[in-house]
């Protein structure tokens, strides 16, 4: 894992060091949120002295002290369960679950309580908790470190689920998530942590529940989120050579979903490809396809195409190049859509 850059105390401008990385933008968002609101506390496994295994919490314990940023025991159910209690007291916990595959021990607390306490208490309790989870593959890791669990959370009423694909969105969405009175599962595309963008932080605010058109096009809409947005953009670029004009929409908020932007794009182009790393069956792409079918049926020239991971457990690292959807696969799907 690459060397971290200390960012918690300096304003970041995108020009100084060739841009801001996604991990640095998250770090800055945490620092700014902690500076702005002393109720914000950050904890999880190895987030203190180490600064997190991806260094997203680098420097926070040092700057804000152990009361505000600290290491927890190795217990995910404990992390989320105590975050619920802290939020009931009045704090705004931002907790880290170290990897996607290690978010499952906390599932009971997330589904049974975090998602439901507002409803169960008839609105008398709110739980402004953010759960940060590095997710997705592509970093050559061992099993359980590369999963895409987004639908488990998106399917759970009461949770908001967002996933940024750029450093400026990472900053803005994390600030919005921390400010949100509802619990937010914040999925960080770990293979994009080190990708840089020329941006000055703080980046402009982004509301939860809004998608972004990353590239405009006339012939096909590609819907992607998190780690697959750059894949979709690469495919769109290659498609130019085939004479196809591809629009790329970064869904970025999985719950709530910005159906309006998605349907409007589908109506404009008449062809839609959805991309996700997760397996196909009952994946988030199926929801996107249904939304497009409901909202743009009369405008469609072709059935919605899905580009997904295979319906296997995430494979060993040496197989992941064959497993992960790449630009070629997206291009194949665009070609199928164009052939109608």
């Amino acid at each position: 894992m690459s060397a971290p850059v200390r960012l918690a105390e300096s304003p970041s401008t995108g020009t100084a060091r060739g841009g801001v990385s996604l991990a640095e933008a998250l770090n800055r968002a945490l620092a700014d949120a902690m500076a702005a609101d002393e109720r914000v506390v950050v904890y999880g496994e190895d987030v203190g002295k180490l600064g997190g295994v991806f260094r997203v919490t680098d420097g926070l314990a040092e700057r804000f002290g152990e009361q505000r940023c600290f290491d927890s025991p190795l217990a995910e159910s404990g992390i989320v369960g105590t975050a619920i209690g802290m939020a009931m007291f009045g704090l705004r916990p931002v907790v880290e679950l170290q990897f996607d595959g290690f978010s499952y021990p906390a599932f009971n607390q997330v589904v049974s309580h975090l998602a439901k306490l507002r409803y169960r208490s008839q609105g008398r309790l709110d739980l402004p908790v953010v759960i940060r989870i590095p997710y997705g593959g592509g970093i050559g890791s061992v099993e359980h470190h590369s999963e895409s669990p987004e639908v488990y959370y998106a399917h759970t009423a009461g949770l908001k689920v967002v996933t940024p694909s750029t450093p400026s969105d990472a900053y803005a969405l994390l600030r919005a998530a921390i400010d949100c009175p509802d619990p937010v599962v914040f999925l960080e595309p770990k293979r994009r942590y080190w990708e840089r963008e020329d941006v000055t932080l703080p980046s402009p605010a982004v509301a939860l529940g809004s998608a972004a058109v990353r590239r405009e096009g006339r012939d096909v809409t590609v819907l992607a989120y998190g780690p697959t947005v750059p894949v979709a953009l690469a495919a769109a670029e290659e498609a130019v050579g085939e004479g196809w004009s591809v629009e790329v929409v970064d869904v970025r908020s999985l719950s709530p979903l910005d159906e309006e932007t998605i349907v409007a794009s589908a109506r404009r182009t008449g062809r839609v490809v959805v991309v996700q790393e997760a397996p196909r069956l009952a994946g988030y792409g199926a929801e996107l396809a249904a939304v497009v079918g409901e909202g743009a049926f009369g405008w469609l020239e072709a059935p919605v195409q899905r580009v997904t991971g295979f319906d296997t457990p995430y494979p060993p690292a040496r197989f992941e190049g064959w497993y992960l959807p790449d630009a070629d696969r997206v291009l194949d799907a665009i070609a199928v859509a164009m052939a109608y």
Partner: protein
Amino acid sequence: MADVAVRQELAGGSLPARDILTLLAPSGVRREDPALECDLDAGAAARLWEAMVIGRRLDRAAVALTRQGELGVYASSAGQEACQVGPVLALDAEDWMFPTYRETVAVVTRGVDPVEALALYRGSAHCGFDPRAARIAPSATPIATQALHAVGFAMAAARTGSSVAALAFLGDGATSEGDAHEALNFAGVFRAPCVFFVQNNGWAISVPIEHQAGNVVLAARGAAYGIPALRIDGNDVLATYAATRAALARARSGGGPTLIEAVTYRMEAHTTADDPSRYREAAVLDAWRQRDPLARMERYLRDAGVLDDARVASVTAEADERAARLRRALQDAAPLDPLRLFDHVYSAPTPLLERQRAQLADELSRMEP
């Protein structure tokens, strides 16, 4: 660090076995302890030392192979050889063990080919060995989960009148997980023939034991669950062997589970991807080097007249040869068949998987020149 001493002292009061049991002082001097009997004489104990020499050599090779890109990442057992060799050699052939990602030396000691043992880290398979042939569960990465499997396995053995016992490896950090507590409780309730071997190596990635547990004496957990527990010197292979051997005998005779806390130290980074300079002083390693498990055993065996320069040289040469074989096997490995990624998802492939397999086969055929 004063904090640690105070906590240790406080915790001592609740510890069933007062002290850290040792049979072999760091100086290599053999001790007796009525609480821990070792049936091995020096001649028979030599194989423990040999397995540690081979294990350490392969472990070093694995670290080097990671730097060369042959492995993706590796979690070293360095410094913990006594914890991984002693318990494994205490097992009967029929017993099963339930290791974590840390236990490569234990897996190799059980007789698994290092190439197969390292497939997880090479990224060529999630588990490279045959669990039934080796009688080893696939190494578990989600922390503490394997402890429950070991207990269930042991419960099944007991229920069917089998004399097979289960050995679960856990780290100190793992004792914080709910699964670890549930495993201890199930084992206590059902008196499962299961041995919990906790390697307290002081660290869970960057988190030291004194931030992990309110009572840093992990053996104290035994009392809470009605499980006999002992705390041993994890760098003393006679102690790790003898404690496990006795616990397995108890398990087999219907005496139920045992919790063994072996106090040791993680001498390397958490994994090759970790940078321990961010959270610990390298100087602490010096004190632990004085407690090296291999050095003390070598001294003991030399003093007992079991080991001489010639035997040391021949065991070292054999260890080097095994490391060289591992290196060659990885460097000469045949390319992987991409379509294997669809194998074994279910007992038979589903139509969806068949379609996806055909899709990948088609993509691959189009990629050929």
